[in-house]
């Protein structure tokens, strides 16, 4: 491929992306309007409630004063609620009252008429009765009288979101092969390329002269694309009891966490001393600087293929990958922790008679702990992301494996449940380390 065609291709792609963004813009604008409207309502509600004078509320300059900007809890609650309401609304969730649902697919029964021309100039009308049923339910074919004339009445069952071809002449006496064709649907002229809307469905004429019936789909998401919140929740309950594909949820979850913890611990065990050595010795700094500076920007995900080639898809491979993901981050954190020691502290310790080992133990290591905790937070985050990605590529068990397996069976509820679990666990890890940090290094940022 020559370079020019690459450029034209990229130009096309860029235009496509810009157009897609343009399509989303009205929705973005609507979201902003909703956010501002909620704020206005919240302000009106709050005016009625006395909240007292906090120091911040007495400040007249707030726009641009970062200290007055604190996360509004009400906004957070409304935001999360809104996500669930939208989710429920677009999936027809049972948790929401009907009037909050966006229009769903047509379901129930409907009928339309077609007018057939037997090819000899005679026309006859027949009625088609249709029952549209939800996925997973069994539709009942409407019973109809056969009617009279050469076109006879038909009955059809269609599943919501699906379409069906109607071979209308199967029971008619005027067949297509004898020249019969449909000229009108619901008394409106129909031809190829000019479908007719019969109120609950779109009826189109196919090349072969049959009718293609497409019931209206509404704007709700189909279940296999986005299941309702309660379905995801039910799925979580059943999977936590019964497991998914013969593996319990605890095993999936535990295995992913185990990999992260082991990989991170080995990475920290090697990386922290390495960082200390780099922070304390010219020789070690010079020796490892090129390696660390080169390996740091390599995303761990890019190492997955190599790790699979070298270590296979077993546990060793994943632990090695996570070890590598944590190693450089922890080494750099420890190094900057050492470099961050104020020279006056070291001088003070020396002039108080401390030996090198004592200075390492009582000054350098405690002084570097805040940096190491920051590194640990970053490393655990990266490890968690990496383990899921590695499991997506190759694993037998694990949360990543679970969602990629579920996606192959279109089990979207399992996929969404897995993603939510991955997010919650990642968040919990971060909060956990922050709590540990507050408890173990209370002097952080106070030196």
């Amino acid at each position, binding site marked *: 491929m020559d370079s020019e065609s690459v450029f034209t291709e990229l130009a096309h792609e860029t235009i496509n992306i810009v157009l897609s963004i343009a399509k989303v813009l009205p929705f973005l604008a609507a979201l902003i309007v909703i956010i501002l409207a909620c704020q206005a309502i919240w302000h009106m509600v709050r005016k009625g409630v006395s909240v007292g004078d906090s120091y911040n509320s007495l400040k007249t300059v707030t726009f641009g004063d970062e200290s007055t900007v604190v996360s509004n809890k009400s906004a957070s609650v409304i935001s999360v609620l809104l996500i669930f309401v939208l989710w429920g609304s677009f999936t027809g969730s049972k948790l929401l009252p009907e009037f909050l649902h966006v229009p769903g697919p047509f379901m129930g029964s409907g009928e339309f008429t077609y007018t057939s021309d037997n090819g000899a100039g005679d026309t006859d009308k027949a009625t088609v009765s249709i029952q549209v049923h939800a996925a997973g339910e069994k539709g009942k074919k409407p019973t109809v009288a056969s009617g009279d004339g050469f076109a006879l009445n038909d009955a059809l069952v269609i599943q919501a979101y699906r379409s069906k071809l109607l071979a209308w002449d199967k029971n008619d006496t005027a067949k297509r092969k004898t020249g019969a064709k449909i000229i009108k649907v619901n008394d409106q002229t129909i031809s190829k390329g000019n479908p007719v809307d019969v109120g609950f469905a779109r009826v189109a004429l196919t090349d072969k002269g049959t009718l293609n019936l497409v019931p209206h789909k509404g704007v709700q998401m189909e279940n296999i694309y986005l299941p309702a919140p309660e379905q995801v929740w039910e799925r979580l309950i059943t999977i936590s009891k019964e497991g998914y594909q013969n593996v319990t949820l605890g095993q999936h979850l535990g295995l992913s966490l185990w990999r992260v913890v082991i990989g991170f611990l080995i990475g920290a065990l090697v990386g922290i001393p390495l960082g200390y050595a780099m922070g304390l010795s010219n020789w070690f700094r010079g020796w490892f600087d090129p390696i660390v500076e080169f390996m740091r920007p390599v995303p761990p995900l890019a190492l997955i293929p190599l790790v699979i080639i070298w270590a296979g898809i077993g546990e060793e491979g994943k632990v090695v990958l996570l070890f590598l993901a944590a190693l450089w981050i922890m080494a750099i954190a420890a190094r900057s922790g050492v470099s961050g020691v104020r020279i*006056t*502290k070291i*001088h*003070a310790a020396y*002039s108080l*008679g*401390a030996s090198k080992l004592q200075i390492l133990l009582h000054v350098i290591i405690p*002084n570097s702990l805040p940096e190491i905790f920051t590194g640990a937070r970053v490393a655990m985050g990266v490890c968690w992301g990496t383990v899921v990605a590695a499991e997506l590529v190759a694993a037998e068990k694990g949360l990543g494996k679970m969602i990629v397996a579920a996606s192959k069976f279109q089990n979207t509820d399992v996929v969404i449940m897995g993603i939510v679990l991955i997010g919650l666990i990642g968040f919990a890890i971060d909060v956990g380390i922050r709590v540990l940090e507050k408890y173990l290094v209370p002097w952080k940022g106070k*030196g």
Partner: protein
Amino acid sequence: MSDLHIDNISMRFDLPGGGSVQALKNINLDIKSGQLLSVLGPSGCGKTTLLNIIAGFLAPTDGEIHLEGKAINGPGPERGMVFQQGALFEWMSVRKNVSFGPDMKGVPKSESAPEVDRLLDLVGLQEFKDKAVYELSGGMQQRVALARCLANDPDVILMDEPLGALDALTREKMQSLVLDLWKETGKTIILITHSVEEALLLGERLLVMAPRPGRVHKEYFLPFADLGVGADLREVKKHPDYAVKREEILAMIWEMEEEIMGRTEEAS
């Protein structure tokens, strides 16, 4: 005798871009045991370099320093150091900071505890001993630094602008404390300062240093430190000689600063 002999110290070092700096040239000092020496001078006169050489953090290019007849070639517990700020260990309580020296020497807690308590009393921090040091005010932190230094029982205390980061009121209180501690412990103290008033009030002996190259410009022996022990320092400042000396030294330093400015202007 724990006299400190500074023997013809010179210090010059190469700059990375070529050229070199003569930070100190031919410094000779004899500091008697128990003397309180304050060192004053415009920035760049090498006073901190001199202190770092005495502390053993820097090696002079020429000359030698002896404390009690022993040559100095590195930091040691017989020379305690008090820094401007940020030298306390935030991960230790006030008490652990103060007992750091004895702890490092392996002195059992039971032995060091009475002395640590006495020092905490002396600097007025007994009730804060279990607090974290970052919970204390700047003045209190410097009290901890003083107590920590004294707990190690050094022969010489080196102070590098220990009160420089404090507000004027706290500074005045701390100056009294330094004088009291000096009288109480009888330690040799070398105090580096930017403030002419502080150098006058705290210096039994006062050195004015001049820059480029760093050298001793003038030396005074003053009565104010003795007068200030246990007394109100504001009364000491009313001494007729105080204002005279203050003006004299200020003029001296002004002149040096002007000279530096002139030289840099010529250069540019």
